[in-house]
């Protein structure tokens, strides 16, 4: 198994003193669908954002394909980020812009500042954006304003935007937490397709254990900024569930 990320006692203390990650270590393998679970506030979002360095780790080491990436700066850092796509709970699309323009922002790291300011994307990039919009099932909506679409459609735009980066990894921070159950499954199916057909590694924060069991190939559980479980989804039984989510928790399913 090829190693993609190696987290070594990764720490994150926010400027306000909150210690969100207290020395987390695990490996991410190429091609897997890794799911991160844990209560809210356990550090899942912080962990994902440390992986692409939109938050700075404050201790420990992070390696990507065998090379430490914690001290990358400027252009090198941006090149590194461009290999990692990211999707968010609230989609984070650029408001007032069309679906096509939003998808094209996935090329910013390889488009010059001047060209991107004046919307001068290359023909190849435009062609590719149109194809990806079709892949996520939004053909015909290219010129619609992205912020007027439904939640599920917006999340598909953001998936297309991430694919536009030609990423090796896709980070997904609770991608279905603001969607209804049916839409949730459709978005999760797209993520699985990306993992299986395009061979892109997916690291996904999730809330619902039923989704974890259905889509995840491996699970890491965080609690209070520490890793407390690592294994396959089927290993999470009643007992582990209570240890991860607390004695009071009851499992709910999403169909």
């Amino acid at each position, binding site marked *: 198994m090829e190693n993609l990320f190696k987290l070594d006692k990764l720490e994150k203390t926010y400027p306000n003193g909150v210690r969100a990650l207290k020395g987390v270590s695990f490996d991410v393998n190429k091609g897997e669908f890794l799911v991160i679970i844990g209560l809210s506030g356990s550090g899942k979002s912080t962990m994902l954002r440390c992986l*692409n360095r*939109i938050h700075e780790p404050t201790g420990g080491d992070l390696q990507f394909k065998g090379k430490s990436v914690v001290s990358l700066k400027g252009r090198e850092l*941006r*090149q*590194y*980020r*461009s*290999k*990692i*796509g*990211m999707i*968010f709970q*609230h*989609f*984070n*699309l*650029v*408001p*007032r*812009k069309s679906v096509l323009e939003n998808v094209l*922002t*996935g090329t*910013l*790291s390889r*488009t010059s*500042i001047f060209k*991107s*300011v004046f919307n001068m994307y290359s023909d190849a990039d435009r062609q590719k954006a149109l194809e990806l919009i079709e892949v996520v099932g939004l053909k015909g909506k290219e010129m619609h304003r992205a912020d007027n679409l439904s939640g599920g459609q917006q999340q598909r735009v*953001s998936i297309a*935007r991430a694919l536009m*980066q030609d990423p090796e990894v896709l*980070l997904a921070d609770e991608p279905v937490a603001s969607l209804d159950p049916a839409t949730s499954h459709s978005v999760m199916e797209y993520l699985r397709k990306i993992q299986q057909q395009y061979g892109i590694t997916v690291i996904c924060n999730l809330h619902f254990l039923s989704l974890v069991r259905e889509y995840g190939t491996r699970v890491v559980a965080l609690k209070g900024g520490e890793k407390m479980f690592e294994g396959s989804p089927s290993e999470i039984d009643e007992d582990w569930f209570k240890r991860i989510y607390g004695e009071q928790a009851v499992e709910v399913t999403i169909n």
Partner: protein
Amino acid sequence: MKKKSTAFKTLLIDFLLASYLVLCIDSFIFTRHTMENGIDWASFGVVLLIGLILGLILNRVSKLSIGKMFLKEYDTSKARGIGQKPYAILGLVILAVTFYVGVLVTELSFYEFFSQAGIQGATRIFTALLNPNFEVLDQGILAVIETIYMAFIATAFSLPFAFLLSFFAARNLMNGSGFGLTVYYVIRFFLNVSRSIEPLVWAIIFSVWVGIGPFAGMLALMIHSVSSLAKLYSEQIENISEGPLEAMTATGAHPIQVIWYGVVPQVILPFLSFTIYRWDINVRMATVIGLVGGGGIGTLLMQFQGLARWNEVGLLIIIIAAVVWLMDFLSSKIRESIK
């Protein structure tokens, strides 16, 4: 530690208020100081001393400390009626004294307001104003056009400066590093200073610098517009949702691209709206600035007023009112349509 500093703050407030009270009573009610007397610093010291003693007493005596009231040291939830809030009575006394001193200082003279000569003067000026002289209509229209363009150019020239500055004056974009924060504070400081100087004062400064005329007026408006717009713009930037910013950063975009796609689309319409509103304000301000020689209809108004040609002044006032109303109407319509 915190307790101590609160106690000190309440005492400071009580001391300042007591000194103010003593000063008012001493200089305006007893001795009737006027400008010519100058300030007697020795007796000012005495006033402060009495203020300190009085302040200490008020601070100690139960429920008479306004300082403690301000810093929420009193439990006011149970107090009903003014009888249980002695500090409120003290507050009213200070307000009454301030009102009285205010009347003395502004020399309100109801006698002159209603005197024979006063009424006659008022009648004369109102009759003239209500009989505007339309012979100066051409002159007035040309002057008001000058004013409108002066305001437009001031707004247009200030726009790029304000636009650039606003990003450096937005805390959420600058708090990434110590250097960024320093730049933020320096820019904020200069914006606050230049904004607190009235355009009228800038106009006086520039009329000495570049000579009296529309250019001086335009520069004065521009300085003020840059600082006002930059402040409004930057507040708008501080209120954006961080999501798109984060998403753009995650794609590996350059910071300029992050701002262009993550910030600008979120603020562009409010910016436009503020700018149009600013033009509207600038037309009004340009009129006032004209009064001190900034050109346009204000200057014309000043000339006719100097010659006591009230019929002509009357016409100019009508023109100004019409233009101000029209600008106000147009700018609110435009702003509504781009919401």
